[in-house]
């Protein structure tokens, strides 16, 4: 199809009716695939790439309530770097992101390995582990806000059992509130990591494990030395997806802590929204959005690079 006649038709010698009949679908058919893709490409160029550029331009202006195009260079980035709330948000993202990713990986891989031991009712257990992923982060936030409520939630329940000195009031404690986000987010996403690992485990050739068993290796040793290295791509994908969820986390913070107490649990996503939409600081908000994009690219580019490499070699 690709190297058919339209090319020749443009050449100087007119080929006449005979040539037309030998290109059965005609010019339109050759262009149809491109025509079908054109709107999506246009959408992507405008709404993704164009908007990224637009936000970057905004981040170089002094825009407040409304976008204005009065350029101030990288002044907004300098203001951002001097903004204490931004540093709280960034530090929170580091704490939240690292704990969220690591705990999800540990719980997810452990559950997957345990479920892979020919368990009865595996399907039912899998369904239970994974269902939180179907919920909205807003629902998750509302539920955990209730569970973590010191007066009526888990703390009150355990105290009611007779452990009067039991304390679990992290959600109202500025130093600990960030960890409540980790708990709720892990609850929601660790089952998904389990599903990823289980799919990976099922894809491993049994004969490798059997061979290791014949060599007398113990089961934990086999998993650590033989199976885990095979799952490296799964770990990599999981880290990538989880880090991505962490950077984008917005709804969970809004529903669970509202960024509070004070702004103790602000994340860059909530910082951006607050400044761009409610505090009339469009320039500053745009600058923070660009830094978020930078964070995503810092994770994405090594990932895509290794994906492309492994595809070439694999």
């Amino acid at each position, binding site marked *: 199809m690709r190297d058919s006649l339209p090319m020749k038709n443009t050449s100087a010698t007119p080929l006449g009716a005979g040539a037309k009949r030998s290109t059965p679908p005609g010019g339109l058919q050759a262009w149809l695939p*491109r025509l079908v893709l054109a709107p999506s490409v246009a959408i*992507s160029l405008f709404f993704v790439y164009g908007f990224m550029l637009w936000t970057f331009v905004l981040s170089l202006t002094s825009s407040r309530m409304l976008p204005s195009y009065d350029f101030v260079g990288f002044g907004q980035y300098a203001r951002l770097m001097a903004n204490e709330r931004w540093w709280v948000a960034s530090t929170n993202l580091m704490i939240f992101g690292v704990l969220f990713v690591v705990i999800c990986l540990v719980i997810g891989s452990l559950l997957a390995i345990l479920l892979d031991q020919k368990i009865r009712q595996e399907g039912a257990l899998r369904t239970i582990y994974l269902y939180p992923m179907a919920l909205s982060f807003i*629902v998750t936030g*509302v539920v955990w806000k209730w569970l973590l409520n010191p007066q009526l939630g888990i703390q009150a329940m355990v105290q009611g059992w007779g452990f009067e000195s039991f304390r679990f009031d992290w959600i109202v404690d500025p130093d600990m509130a960030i960890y409540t986000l980790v708990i709720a987010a892990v609850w929601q996403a660790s089952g998904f990591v389990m599903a990823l690992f289980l799919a990976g485990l099922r894809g491993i050739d049994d004969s490798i494990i059997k061979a290791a068993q014949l060599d007398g290796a113990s089961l934990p040793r086999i998993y650590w030395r033989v199976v885990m290295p095979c799952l490296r791509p799964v770990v990599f994908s*999981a880290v990538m997806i989880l880090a991505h969820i962490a950077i984008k986390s917005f*709804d969970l913070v809004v529903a669970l802590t509202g960024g509070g107490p004070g702004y103790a649990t602000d994340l860059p996503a909530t910082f*951006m929204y607050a400044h761009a939409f409610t505090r009339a600081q469009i320039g500053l908000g745009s600058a923070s959005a660009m830094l978020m994009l930078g964070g995503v690219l810092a994770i994405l580019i090594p990932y895509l690079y290794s994906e492309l490499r492994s595809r070439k070699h694999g």
Partner: protein
Amino acid sequence: MANVIRRQTPAARLGRGLLYGVLILAALFYILPLVVMLMTSVKPLSEISAGSLLSFPQNPTFAPWTKAWGEACTGMRCDGVGGYFWNSFAIVIPAVLISTTIGALNGYALTKWRFKGSELVFALMLFGCFIPFQVVLLPMAQTLGWLGISSSRAGLILVHVVFGIAFTTLFFRNFYVGIPNELVSAAKLDGAGFFRIFWRILLPVSAPIIVVSVIWQFTQIWNDFLFGVAFSAHNTQPVTVALNNLVNTSTGVREYNVDMAAAMIAALPTLVVYVLAGKYFVRGLTAGSVKG
């Protein structure tokens, strides 16, 4: 079977017991919040303040559910989340149908009608899956204003279609790559055109990936909060935004049972989809992350 049982030593049996113990504990961790949410939503307020989180409802009542649906205050208005529940459907259904259709055609064109630069087109579009949406919020708000559809359902549908086609294209492209080219080539030789081949050859085998794409888009758009809160007005809000407003409205006594009932209402559609089609849900989640 028989010799498997005979080989079980007491130590092995203990290990098995421990294994099940851990798995069941984990199951409790995941299921209890849902149980608590459901039980709290049918308890009267007096029972909530007197009893504990896990105490079984003594006098179950559906009053919190009807209140959450039709009367509870979400911000300034007090007409429950029911209207917003239908809002969500009015946004989700068109957005899912349009984005899935476009994704299917894109995936088909990218795999069965490859042309110079088609891989580049795919890579270009794929990037849309990864951007943090904060980076498009402000330009989007202004563009919706120019188009005259800011704060409308049509505007939200547009936003979800625009940022959904990257995912749907990815799903269909990865699926169609696995369909042998011979059939398509033969049909091309017979003179069948672009749409005819799609309709007669690709579409009949696409059921699994259509289900994956529809479920993925449905849960994504239903659960969306960021676009909903940024681009809606009080009468076009999706249910997630209404739920958040309801929980954070501070007038009078905090009615936790109504909060939980509203959360259940907002969660039910995606939970039902998950229970009915969990297999496809998992496939959507893992598409693009686990190769193949």
